[in-house]
């Protein structure tokens, strides 16, 4: 854990109309801005959820990816697993696949069309919206999905992804 040095605010010189700030400071501000933006996206974060009845509390990124690619159909603890998707084009869906599986929506569609039309698997069931996802996940421990952190309630738990 590091504590950043105090950063001087840039000041506008009224005569030259130039910003006076050291190069170091502006770089540092840029970095801080990035950190803040990163922090902001953590606030509007997409999280992975399961039912509170599900004993699983954390998954590795590999395990999560295997579940949403249909490669694994059970949790490592042994219970049956079934992923659920948000509608196409939603920011949760884009962020989830981009962040955890490093795949674009077109890549995922290509992946599932390959499996679906060759008898090797079916893409996850798509639900109408976040509240439907939370409701469905809560009712059965086999389901796993993702929602914006703000949509999480006491009926589901957020998994730690390592």
């Amino acid at each position, binding site marked *: 854990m590091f504590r950043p040095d105090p950063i001087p605010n840039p000041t506008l010189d009224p005569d030259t109309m130039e910003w006076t700030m050291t190069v170091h400071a502006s770089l540092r501000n840029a970095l801080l801005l990035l950190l803040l933006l990163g922090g902001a996206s953590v606030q509007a974060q997409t999280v992975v959820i399961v039912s509170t009845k599900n004993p699983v509390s954390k998954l590795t990124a*590999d395990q999560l990816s*295997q579940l949403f690619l249909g*490669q*694994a*159909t*059970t949790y490592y603890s042994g219970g*049956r697993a079934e992923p659920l998707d948000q509608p*196409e*084009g939603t920011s949760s869906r884009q962020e989830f696949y981009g962040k955890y599986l*490093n795949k*674009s*929506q*077109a*890549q*995922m*569609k*290509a*992946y599932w*069309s*390959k499996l*679906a*039309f*060759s*008898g*090797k698997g*079916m893409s996850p069931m798509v639900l109408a919206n976040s509240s439907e996802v939370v409701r469905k996940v809560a009712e059965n421990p086999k389901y796993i999905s993702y929602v914006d952190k703000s949509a999480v309630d006491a009926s589901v738990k957020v998994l730690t992804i390592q």
Partner: protein
Amino acid sequence: MTTLHRPRLLPALALALLAAPAALAEDGFPAVKFSGFASIVAGQIVNHAAPGSDPEPGKSGPIYLADWSNWGAYSKTLSLQPESRAGAQAVVSFSESLRFTGQMVVRGTDSTPALTWAYVAYDLSPEWELQVGRKRIPLYYYSDFQDIGFSYPWVSPPPEVYGWDATNYNGASLRYKTVLGSTTVAASVFGGKETVKESRYMISAGLSKADVTWSNIQGGDLEVTKDWLTVRGVFIQADPSVVDRLNSANNYQQKMTAYGLAANGDFGNLFVLTEFAQNNRTSAGYETKAPCYTVGLGYRLGKWTPFLNFAEYRETTTNPSYAPVSYMRPSLTLRYDVASSASLKLQVDRYLEYRGTAFTTDSTVVRLALDVVF
């Protein structure tokens, strides 16, 4: 003309319906899922060397064969016919572990809808799945989803590797999949039989009314994925035979073995697709071997994916009266994802023969494709 054998659907349906009542009590079943795909492909030969002659009646000039199985041949005239196709699929789930899948495809080369898939699948456990009915032969990496243009970077998988006289079969397969840490493993064994009535593939031999049968199809494959690497190996054997309804002197029987090894690397934006395969056929004491390979390199730039490929096919034979065919083909494809389920591709192929056929010649082919899935 019907190129694909009409399947015996009734046994598969009967099995599905017999098993259904027990499952009907389950929540949400039966459930039906419809989906589909289409590829509209326009292409033509833009320049060529010495003239070849088209073996199809009423046609002239050299051709470029993009799809041997369905005789999808481009000529000097712009055409949508050789490779355009559309398919629809329905999956009826009777329970969490029992499903029926049916898929129909229509093609520019054959407007009669053909049943490409019609099978019952039963999950014996989370790892084991039994499928019985009509399916595509999982010969090489892209064989069983060869029609789904949206799923690969080319306009069509390389005909050097993907161009055989049977594509489907009636039979059964047993599939196993598991996860070992960060490695996923899938394996299958399959067996069955296929008859292609009035095979369009046989146009290459000048036969317009010949039926191709692959009996005694037996094979197995193993696919392993770890991190960025996917490797698949396959071995298959069959007894192909041809019956020419016009002249029995053209009939023949063969023994076939084929194997393939595909290795694909996905490094995020950069990806590499490679496959090596060999098809061996013995007939009347003579052996013909057809090794082939394809190597491609692609780079994802947001919605754009340029893809450079090189493929080669080289026949050798011990039969002095058979002229073996050999050729190579560099190609460049530019794919643009119009939407998350539609892409446009422009591909230029430079087809170059070491030893060609009477109907082909060195040529440059340009194709434009729109691929959608829904």
